[in-house]
Structures are given as structure tokens and as C-alpha cells.
């Protein structure tokens, strides 16, 4: 390394900082990207690293200038990371970069549009590369390699910008991803695609677009790569649980029940009773399950989706009554007295008068969950002889 004067070092540092703040103020993502891409080993970044070693007081420089201080939270750790990176100290480089990246996300959230999305992708890429190298360093020193896992949760945060009620920002971000010719979605590393599909799939759940939610969340699940299933704390397993928490309500809404082993394996106890209720037509159990986990379901945003399963449970209950009647007297099975239903509901500790039962019957018929008609005067439901309880067949109950 040729000798660099203090003045020269100072100049290079301020040069970088100026380019950074200019890039932000003019929303120039191309320039911003270059300033963040460590692994490119660009000469300018390398010489910046050298400059930081010569001019050791960059922090003060940043914090005292009105020009640079707004981004201090990003640039100070970024510089530190770069220095560590240059000296081959990968674990420290990772830690500092992570700090800078978190600060970057905060800023990203405040910007009104998703202009810096590509820069965010660069950061996401860099953090993973750094994490992998840091883990190698840890492993070679006999320590446990956990930086990659940390990077994984950082990536969740990155895509967290897509979620959480910043709907207008989501739309522009999603639009820019899905229409950008610059990126081919397929080119991105699988993990990014999985997390992206998770967050956008989740948004679809909130907006009750079940077919889209199913498609996206299923994609995420399939591509989750459960290679390290045994390690329940691995990123993949954590992701699987996160995906399932949303995918299960979606599947239930289109009439597909998860197997018990799935719920057991990933400890999704909150759904066991709901699945049971659907299987047995047990309305009381459904209400009970919703009450028991009300807070959790409300916070995760699936409560309203699960509540809607009520009609399917009614369908199942009526079907059971029908089956029992058929066993007793096949010739009369297709006629169901409303009083019988009232009794069945009473047995489930649900107090409903015959008028309300008539209403439920009417709605089930109207929504094609039951085929038949009801006779008001004789208080009877007459079921179609063929397929009186049609399956949902992958479509949500039509409203």
C-alpha cells in the first residue's frame, strides 16, 4: 500500500460521504448501490478502507457535519465494518455491517417510495455473504457458526418492510419487484424468494384473497428447503412454522385439512381444536378454540379468517345428522326436521331457536354448502338425493 497522506485520506472519506448523501437526496439508487457493495472489492472501497485506517477520526467527521450526520447511524458502523473487512476480521465486519443495515432499513421506511429497493437488495446480499464468511471464521476458531442465522432474521426484517400496514409502500414495492425487468425473480437466491413469497402471501391472507395466498404461501413452503429438519431452531424450520401459521387458515378456508402429524411436528397447537371442530362439526369446540387463542389470532391477523369457518362446521354437523338418520332409516334420511337440528345444537350447548336454525339452513343452501330446500310450515329441510353436501373443492365459501 502506497503511503497515503492525512489530507488524501480525509479527502477520500469526505468524497464517499458526499456521494452517499447526494445519492440519497437525488434518489440515485445506482450510485448508492455501488457504495454498499463490499464484496465487489472495488478499488474505491478498498482505498476508502485504507483511508479510514490513516484518518482515524472519521466518526467525529461524520457527526459534526450537518451534511453527513443524518446518516451517521448508517455510515459510522459501515465504516467500521469496512475496516474490519479489510483486515480480514470477518466476525466483527459482520456485526458492524448488520448494525448499519438495520439503520438503513429504518431510513428506507421513512422514504416515501421504494426508490432504494435495489440498494436494499445489495445490503441483503452483502449481509449474507459476510455472514457466511464470518461463520467460516467462527468454525475455524472452534466456535459455533451462528451469524448466518442472524442474517436470516435480518432478512426477515428487510422483507418486513413489505408487511405491517405500510400498505401504500407495500404496493409500490411489490409492483416494482413484480414488474421490474431489471430483476428476474428467478435469479434471486431461493431464500429471498421464499421470504418474499411469505410476506406477500401473508398480505393476501389479510386481504382475504385466498387463492393468491394459497399459491404464494405454498410456494414458500415448498421451497423452504427443510434439509436441516432435525434442527428445529434452524432458519428453515422457523420459516416453515411462520408459513404454516398463515397457510393453515388459508387451506382450511378452502376445505383442506392438515394432517395431525403436521400440527404435532411443528407444535401448532392453536390449530388442533379448530381442525377437530371442522372434522366433527363441533360448533362449540370452534368457538372455544377461537376464544382460547383470541389474542394470538388477532395479533397474527388470522382471527377473522378462522371465524369464517363457522359455516363449514355447520355443514359438517348437518352432514353427520344426515348420516345418522340414513343409518336409522335410509328412505327418510333426506328429510331433516329442524327440531332435530335444534336438539343436536342443544347437545352442543348452543342455544338456538328453530327460527335461527331455519336461517342457517337457508344460508347454507344459498351458499351452496347444502343442496335442497326448506319447508317453512312443516319445519323441515328436504335434501337433494344426490350430493346434498357438496365439497368446497379448493374454492372458498362464496359470499
Amino acid at each position, binding site marked *: 500500500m502506497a503511503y497515503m497522506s492525512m489530507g488524501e485520506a480525509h479527502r477520500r472519506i469526505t468524497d464517499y460521504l458526499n456521494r452517499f*448523501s447526494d445519492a440519497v437526496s437525488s434518489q440515485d439508487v445506482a450510485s448508492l448501490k455501488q457504495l454498499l457493495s463490499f464484496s465487489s472489492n472495488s478499488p474505491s472501497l478498498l482505498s476508502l478502507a485504507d483511508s479510514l485506517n490513516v484518518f482515524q477520526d472519521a466518526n467525529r467527521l461524520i457527526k459534526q457535519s450537518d451534511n453527513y450526520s443524518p446518516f451517521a447511524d448508517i455510515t459510522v458502523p459501515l465504516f467500521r465494518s469496512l475496516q474490519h473487512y479489510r483486515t480480514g476480521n470477518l466476525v466483527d465486519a459482520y456485526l458492524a455491517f448488520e448494525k448499519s443495515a438495520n439503520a438503513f432499513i429504518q431510513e428506507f421506511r421513512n422514504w416515501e417510495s421504494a426508490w432504494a429497493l435495489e440498494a436494499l437488495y445489495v445490503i441483503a446480499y452483502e449481509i449474507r455473504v459476510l455472514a457466511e464468511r464470518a461463520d467460516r471464521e467462527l468454525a475455524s476458531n472452534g466456535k459455533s457458526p451462528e451469524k448466518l442465522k442472524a442474517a436470516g432474521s435480518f432478512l426477515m426484517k428487510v422483507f418486513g418492510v413489505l408487511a405491517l400496514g405500510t400498505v401504500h409502500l407495500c404496493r409500490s414495492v411489490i409492483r416494482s419487484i413484480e414488474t421490474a425487468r431489471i430483476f428476474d425473480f428467478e435469479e434471486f437466491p431461493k431464500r429471498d424468494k421464499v421470504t418474499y413469497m411469505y410476506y406477500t402471501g401473508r398480505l393476501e391472507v389479510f386481504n382475504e384473497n385466498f387463492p393468491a395466498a394459497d399459491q404464494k404461501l405454498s410456494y414458500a413452503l415448498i421451497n423452504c428447503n427443510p434439509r436441516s429438519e432435525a434442527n428445529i431452531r434452524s432458519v428453515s424450520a422457523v420459516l416453515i412454522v411462520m408459513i404454516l401459521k398463515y397457510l393453515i387458515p388459508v387451506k382450511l378456508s378452502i376445505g383442506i385439512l392438515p394432517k395431525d402429524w403436521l400440527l404435532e411436528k411443528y407444535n401448532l397447537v392453536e390449530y388442533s381444536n379448530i381442525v377437530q371442530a371442522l372434522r366433527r362439526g363441533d360448533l362449540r369446540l370452534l368457538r372455544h378454540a377461537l376464544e382460547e387463542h383470541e389474542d394470538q389470532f388477532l395479533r397474527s391477523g388470522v382471527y377473522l379468517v378462522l371465524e369464517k369457518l363457522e359455516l363449514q362446521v355447520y355443514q359438517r354437523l348437518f352432514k353427520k345428522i344426515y348420516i345418522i338418520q340414513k343409518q336409522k332409516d335410509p328412505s327418510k334420511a333426506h328429510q331433516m326436521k329442524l327440531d332435530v337440528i335444534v336438539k343436536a345444537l342443544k347437545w352442543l350447548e348452543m342455544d338456538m331457536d328453530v327460527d335461527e336454525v331455519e336461517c342457517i339452513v337457508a344460508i347454507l343452501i344459498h351458499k351452496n354448502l347444502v343442496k335442497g330446500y326448506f319447508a317453512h310450515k312443516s319445519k323441515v329441510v328436504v335434501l337433494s338425493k344426490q350430493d346434498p353436501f357438496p365439497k368446497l373443492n379448493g374454492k372458498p365459501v362464496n359470499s
Partner: protein
Amino acid sequence: MERRHHSQSHSQRQQRRNHFSSSSSSSSNQSRSNNRFSFPKSSSSSSSSSANDVRDRRRETQEEKQEEAIVGTCPFMCPEAERLQRQRLRDLAVFERLHGDPRNSSPALAVKKFCRTMSAKEVRASDVRPLPVLEETLNYLLSLLDSTEHPFEVIHDFVFDRTRSVRQDLIMQNIVNDKAINMFEKIVKFHVISHHKLRSSCSSSSISPLHYLNLEQLTKALTSLYNLYEANRSSKPIHEKEAEFRSFYVLLHLDSNGQPVGESLSLWFRHVPSPIIKSKEMWFARQALRYFQMGNYRRFLSTVAAEASYLQYCIIEPYIDEVRSLALCCIHNCCYKLHPYPLGHLSKVLMMEESDVELFCNAYGLQTCIDEVGNKLLPTKQTTFCRPKGGLQNYSFLGFQQLGSHMLSSLFYNHFLLVPMKPFSHVDGWN
């Protein structure tokens, strides 16, 4: 310190845009940042000299905002300069005219008009009314709702515009305390009542522009109110009427499929504080939502009759029609043809006076008939069943006591709004 500025600036800018912008977009999303309203009082923002860099651009907006938080000094409901100008230009609303003279007003009658300001730098403190004046202004405006001299649309139009100006003055002065909450609650109540009354008076099925604009402001004011509740969380964990006002959001969004913009209810519920969720008012709203989504018309209508407050009723009213429509559809299509449905029973199901039931059926192209003993019946599976072309007229709702107009202003001062209406009590026809 700096970071807080930045994280505020975005959501605050959004907030201000909502208050000052034109009626382009509807409800804004509820922001998440906690410290949105609290400006740091210390002068941490040292003013910079260079005008071009990013920091300055941000600080400028920040300083702008601190400047925007001016303290008004206007002692009247309307700044004198504006009143004199509008007198000259004969731009006085009916309520502002002294003895009906379109060229003459008085400080007791003139009320500041809403005007879109692009930048608070143009605003003088003498044009902005301080809090006590705003409170008096609002009370005066709401007292006009009792007026019997003018049709409701005229009253609404005036109060609509002038309360918008009151809101603007509050925002400009960054008044975010309990009193602001109180005022916003009253303004929301006004919009809710208008939501109901404007609907009664419009005859066509298309929603009138007044009604639509009112709904827009209702949503904006409601969002501001929620932000105020959040901003005051540290001093008062849950406000007295917060549960009811939160329930309005649910009741406004019962039909989630009809919402193209705005936060879905699932997202919205994530951030509602637990005590609110467990409140009686929110419980009602959630039940209404559950029954509406399920199509359980029987429970929906009877629950509304039994438990809705007057304001909740006003909001949920359009959905009552929708549910009744669904009920009629189900009964008509799914009931055995040889068992015509008794109107008496239908009246119970629809929670409607029997005389109205007949009209209701007719509106759907259905004929009723009478049996041997004189009971009125609805034959089912008629081929003439169709959706009404025009709008529906207003039908009775069993259990709902319509308040006479002279009682409207009392809505703002009593707490009886939270008392549920008794089912099957005195029924008033609507006109």
C-alpha cells in the same frame, strides 16, 4: 434525537397531507409511530446555513412544522378580515347573514371557512383561532343541527365545511391533548349523524356526492381521532369513549370485499389495544361483523336491534338493507314453493313493520297474497324476483327510536348514546 425527527417526518407528512389535501383519496392508513405528535421542545435542530443538502431539506420540513405549530390569536369564530371580505363579496352562508342580509354578518354569526393552505408560512396567527374559541365555535355549529328552518342538507353543508376549518386550526396549532380528542369525537359524531340523515333524504340508488364526501371526512376525522388516542396513551391509557369510536371503524368496514383501499380489518385489529377489544362496544361490532360475514341475518338484525347505540346504528344502517336483501333472497329462493312464507313471520325475521314488509317485497318484484283466514303470505320462487332498480326507500327498523331533529344537539352532551335501544319498543316511521 435526530432519528426521531426522521421517523416522525414521514408519517407526519402523511398526516398533514390528509388534513390539508383535497378530497382525492379516502381513508388513510393508521400509522404506527408512537411519537408522532410530540415535537422535541429542545432546540436540537441547529439551523444550518447551506440550503442544498438533504439534511436541510429534512430539517426544513421539521422547522416548517415547528413553525406551523403557531399559536392562534383570533378571538372570533371568523377572523375579522375574512368576515369583512366575504361581506363585501356577498359570500355569506344563510346562517351567517344578519337579518337575512347577504351583505351583512356579525362576529356572532360568521364562522371561518375551510380553505386549503399549501404552506403554513402563509398563515397569520391572527387568522387562527385558539383552543377556547375553537371549542365555542364547534359548540355553536353543532347547535345549528337543531334548526328546523332549513333542510338538513343545507345545515349539513355549512357545518361540514366549518368543522373542517376547526379541524384545520387544531392541526395547525398542533393541539393534541384531551380537549382535541373531545372536539374530534364531537366532529365524528356529526359526520355519523349526517351519514344517516343524508342517506334518508337521497332517493336514488347512487350515493349522493354529499353523502360520499361526508363519508370521506368521517373516515379522515376518525383516523385523526385514533392518532390522538395513541398520542395521549401515556397520560391516559384508554379514553372514556374510545371503545365506541373504535367500533365505528369495524362497522364501517363490514363488507371487506368492497374495500379497494385502506387497511383490511385483519391488519387493523392487530394494533387495537386489548382493553378495547374486550369492551362491550367492540364486542358488539365484532358480533355484527361475524354475523354479517356468515350471512346469519337473523342474529345480525336482532343483535343490532338489541345492542347498537344510536351512532352505531347510523353507521351500520346501509348494511341492514343489505342483510335484509340477503334474507329475502334466501327465503324466496330456498323455501318450498307450496309453503308460502307468512308476512308476519317475515316481519320478525327482517325486523320490519309488516306494512313495510309488503312494500319491501314489492320493491323486489314480488307479489304477496292472502290466505283463507286473512293472513298475508309471500309465495316463494316467483319468477319476477329482481333487484330493485332505484334505491330502497327507508323502512322501519323494529326497536329503533328515531330521534326528532330537535334532540340532535343533545347527542353531543349526553352520555345516553351508549345505552342500547330497547327491542320492540315504540316505532316511528321515517320520512
